[in-house]
């Protein structure tokens, strides 16, 4: 897409776009016919049953998996033409907490967020250190700055990984199930933090999330992935209708807590 050209009825160029994308592993195709455009400043949830292709979609968006067909672009530039540093300065990824091979303080882990900006020979400069300290404060872990990350709870470790992404200062943050290991309070903390990063900093946020209720109540745009395709895309009210939940997730929407699927179900019954 050429900058400045009006596309799809909007003057803005999407910050992330997938056009005609297919992807898979070896002979197995996991995703096909994927078209998705995400504008700067949006907050998007990717939902879908296990094995539907959410993680593959995430790996495509972050450039660790190359599509077998179509193009994935950030800022209108295909990921294939960017090197890893260029991508890392545009897209930060929050993985699920994994184990660390060595003892490492919160500060030294969050400092990893500065790697894409760091000078090969000089390492962290004062501006980098300030960004690291600010990111740690932002997620509320200031009192744990010198603690070994491996001593922290899963919730705190998730916040450390969020701080890494904040320190990375990329306009896009992509998260892989950031609330999955967390108790209710930590789930809300993480969602509040994401909302703040989205609203106050204008960061574009894309998150894979399993909890439909949490997604529908907090995230303005829902992309539903089912069986290797995008089957719905829109505000929770339309993307998570009762029929959609029944068809894609194979559950009776009446069994879920209240959400857009309940209202739609009521209409259908009435």
């Amino acid at each position, binding site marked *: 897409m050429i900058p400045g050209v009006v596309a799809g009825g909007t003057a803005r160029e999407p910050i992330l776009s997938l056009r005609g994308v297919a992807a898979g592993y070896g002979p197995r195709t996991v995703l096909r016919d994927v078209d998705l455009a995400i504008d700067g400043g949006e907050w998007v949830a990717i939902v879908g049953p296990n094995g539907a292709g959410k993680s593959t979609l995430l790996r495509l968006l972050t450039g660790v998996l190359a599509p077998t067909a179509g193009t994935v672009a950030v800022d209108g530039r295909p990921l294939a033409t960017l090197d890893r540093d260029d991508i890392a300065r545009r897209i930060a*990824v929050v993985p699920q907490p994994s184990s660390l091979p*060595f003892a490492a303080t919160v500060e030294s882990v969050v400092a*990893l967020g500065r790697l894409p900006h760091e000078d090969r020979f000089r390492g962290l400069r004062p501006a980098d250190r300030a960004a690291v300290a600010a990111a740690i404060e932002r997620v509320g872990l200031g009192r744990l700055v*010198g*603690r070994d990350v491996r*001593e922290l709870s899963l919730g705190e470790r998730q916040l450390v990984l969020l701080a890494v992404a904040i320190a990375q200062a990329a306009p896009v943050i992509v998260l892989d199930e950031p609330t999955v290991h967390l108790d209710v309070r930590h789930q809300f903390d993480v969602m509040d933090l994401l909302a703040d990063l989205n609203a106050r900093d204008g960061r574009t946020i894309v998150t894979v999330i399993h909890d439909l209720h949490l997604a529908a109540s907090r995230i303005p745009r829902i992309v539903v992935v089912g069986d290797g395709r995008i089957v719905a895309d829109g505000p929770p009210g339309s993307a998570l209708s009762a029929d959609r939940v029944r068809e894609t997730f194979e559950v009776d929407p009446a069994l879920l807590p209240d959400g857009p699927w309940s209202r739609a179900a009521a209409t259908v019954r009435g």
Partner: protein
Amino acid sequence: MASRQDALAAPTAIELSMAGRRRPIVLAVVGLAALAVALVAAVAVGTVPIAPVDTLAIIVHRLLPFDLAQTWTATEETIVWDLRLPRVLEAMIVGLGLAVAGTTFQGLLRNPLADPYVLGTASGAALGAAIAVLIPVRIELLAFGLLQILAFAGALLSVTVVYRLSRTAGGSPMTSLLLTGYALGSLLAAALAMAMYLSGAALRQIFAYLLGSFENASWGELAGAIPLIAIGSILILVRARTLNGLLLGEESAAHLGVDVRRERAILLALASLVTAAAVAVSGLIGFVGLVVPHVVRMLVGPNARLVLPLSAIGGALLMVVADLAARMLGGIPVGVITAVIGAPFFLLLLRRAQRGYEL
């Protein structure tokens, strides 16, 4: 056990990072000073004691065009310049190389139990050395005998085979590297056992190589080993960023801007080259490459930018002191000494590490 209360009373972020930033510099200065003292002491001490002043004077006399009043004998000059100095320098460069390679392998494989020998370098080098002892051919290439040449080639060849095989295996690349290294190492160890069984009178020579020593050090050997180890270590050091990225895993490293496939291949090649050069001249000396990086990480944290240079200093220091002790104790294998000095020190640090240290 640290509790939430302790955390509240802990130093603030700013205090902590200030203290954290001075510490590596202090450690580097102390380490280099200790290394300088150890080098001079190691050259001065021996069956023929030579005064440290004379030792320094001989070295200065040889290196610089100063006209010093000669207070030493020609024999002393030979002992210092042709025997002890190459030996001490070889211990230093081998210790440095093994510690840097150990840090690299631990970081690349994300495994705290990795050491420079983990991918088959040791068994490849040992088999190469055994073959060199067994075949009745004597070749000299520059100052290198057949044993050094075959040990060097064996080490590099086995890592190459491990790397190739692991790329065709499934699963996580790092796990398959480790497992392939283990499998090939076992196979080579069996071949080595067979070679030793068949070796007869040459067994002692093979065994001496396996234990490791700096007895045969010469300027010629150093001329080969120093450039390989020094240049390899410097090239690793400028890739510290890659090792840092890998702390959170391979995929996260990619998300942080590291070209993982390329960087991994380069670092594996460099660390293997450094290890091969070290084992070719000194034989198999354990412990330094495993323990020194851990000790350094306990002191300064996991940042490879600090761990690599401080491990280099620590490895050099430990090896020079260990070789000095080995000589003073009547020629005990230096590998025994590195373990005897290193293990209790490591255990002490493990016990004292306030933040706990899981392996």
